């Protein structure tokens, strides 16, 4: 085993709990930031399909320390009875408490939060405000429909997979599953409730982070989201802000990376991005790059 995993309890009264995954000493990258992850919706800290466990172990092999933990009141973390703060405010405070705990106990001064779906909200808020954040990963983060989105929209009518799905939903008897369309669990899964910043706010926040030297990795998937082509993010925030930002679009993946091979691609993207930008202690700025990877992903 090239890493160790320990329970880390932190925050006021030690009521927040997480798993600290550390590479063995010979593998550790000196001065590298610590990576943080937490709940996705009501999923506890392991993430959908154990995403954050696999991520922590993969990152440890690459020399990075990470902490996956539960926001107070969720998963294995407790919440103080006196704590009446709204959930988003508490989440931001808990992420900062995690950073302070790693600073106090392991000497980390730089951090990379990884937000996934609704977890992006706290990742974004902390990253904008806290200068200890040198990089931030948005997995299925904010999407705003742009003129480019609508230009690409008709492409869906040429996609045979969409027609097949429509037929399967409309005529389940043809495919041997009578109850599928009426299954209320499916209807619930189609709804993802998010607390978005305004587009102007997002543009300003990204600009603030980039000016500070913070690096951003944004990973989007295809499907039924408000994001449908790789460069859409730059249309969302304005093309004048492109430095320090990497965007990867997986048109065939779904929202929670349901298929194992898609999860592996996303994990590989996060770990290679960290390795590329945070293997050396000093932060640096580079222009956004564009390339096409050989795995279906489109990166800008």
């Amino acid at each position, binding site marked *: *085993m090239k890493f160790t995993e*320990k329970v880390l309890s932190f925050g006021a009264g030690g009521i927040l709990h997480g798993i600290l995954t550390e590479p063995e000493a010979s593998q550790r990258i000196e001065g590298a930031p610590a990576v943080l992850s937490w709940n996705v919706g009501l999923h506890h800290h392991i993430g*959908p399909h154990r995403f954050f466990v696999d991520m922590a172990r993969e990152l440890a092999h690459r020399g990075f320390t990470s902490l996956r933990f539960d926001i107070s009141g969720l998963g294995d973390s407790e919440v103080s009875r006196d704590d009446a703060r709204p959930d988003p405010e508490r989440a931001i405070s808990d992420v900062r408490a995690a950073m302070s705990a790693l600073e106090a106990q392991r000497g980390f001064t730089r951090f990379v939060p990884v937000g996934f779906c609704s977890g992006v909200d706290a990742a974004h808020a902390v990253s904008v405000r806290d200068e200890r954040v040198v990089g931030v990963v948005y997995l299925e983060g904010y999407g705003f429909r742009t003129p480019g989105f609508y230009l690409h929209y008709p492409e869906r009518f040429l996609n045979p997979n969409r027609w097949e799905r429509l037929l399967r939903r409309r005529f389940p008897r043809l495919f041997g599953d009578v109850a599928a369309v009426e299954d209320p669990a499916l209807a619930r899964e189609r709804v993802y409730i998010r607390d978005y910043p305004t587009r102007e706010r997002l543009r300003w926040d990204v600009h603030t982070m980039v000016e500070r030297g913070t690096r951003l990795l944004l990973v989007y998937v295809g499907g039924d989201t408000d994001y449908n082509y790789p460069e859409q993010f730059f249309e969302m925030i304005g093309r004048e802000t492109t430095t320090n930002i990497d965007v990867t679009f997986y048109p065939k993946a779904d929202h929670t990376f349901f298929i194992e091979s898609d999860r592996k691609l996303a994990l590989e993207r996060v770990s290679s991005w960290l390795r590329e930008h945070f293997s050396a202690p000093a932060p640096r700025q580079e222009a956004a790059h564009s390339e096409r990877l050989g795995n279906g992903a489109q990166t800008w």
Partner: protein
Amino acid sequence: MKPLFLGNTARRLYGVYHSPLRTSRHAVLLCYPGMQEYNAAHWAFRRLAAMLARDGHHVLRFDYFGTGDSAGDSRDGHPDGWVEDVKQAAQELRDLSGARELSVVGMRLGAAFATLASSAGLRVRRLVLWEPVIDGRAYVRELELWDSRRNLMLLHSSRTRDRKTELLGHPFPAAVRNATEALDLTRVGAPRADKALILAAEPRGEHEAFKAVLEKHGVATALKRVMESATNGEQEVRERALLSNTALLDMAEELRGVLSA
């Protein structure tokens, strides 16, 4: 609530220990369902653990090898090993708490593992079996049906349709499939349990058959219907059960009987 790692270096298991509000000689081990149903059950298990600790039980909930935060890749787990994990966790709970007596609560596949562990020598006061998987083949078929419906959400479901090594977003290697399909609790050996409680939202013939088997082995067994409000299907019954108190209260009530005995 105290998270910890247990087991040995080669097979470290993650667990959360809930200490009782008062001195107790009785401990309860909670066995999660399989990884396909684990995330959905996590919150209910946390609530159940808190309820039982308030009642005066030492409680441990833990992740099987290759699941949750325990060591091992998701492809490395196997039902035989998971049954051993139940025995290992039970021993650790005894050591940790000093409790002399133990009961086990298992949900779905976890109920099957709890029963098999008890049949293999784990001595328990109560076996509480929540929607137990009795017929492994039927269980796999049920998960496959959900999987096919879940795939309706995907744009590229053709990528998963013929891939039998994944199920509901988790690896499902052939060895795990074969061992799961071979599960048949109506052929289980005698569990070392005083009593058993089977909880089911919709009691069926298989529950009755399993109850009869346990009783034949000398385990006094009750089959209780969990009264949930009207629903549209088995999956929703289970979802409601996970969010409601009904099943949790039934289990807590059953285990209170051990404390007062």
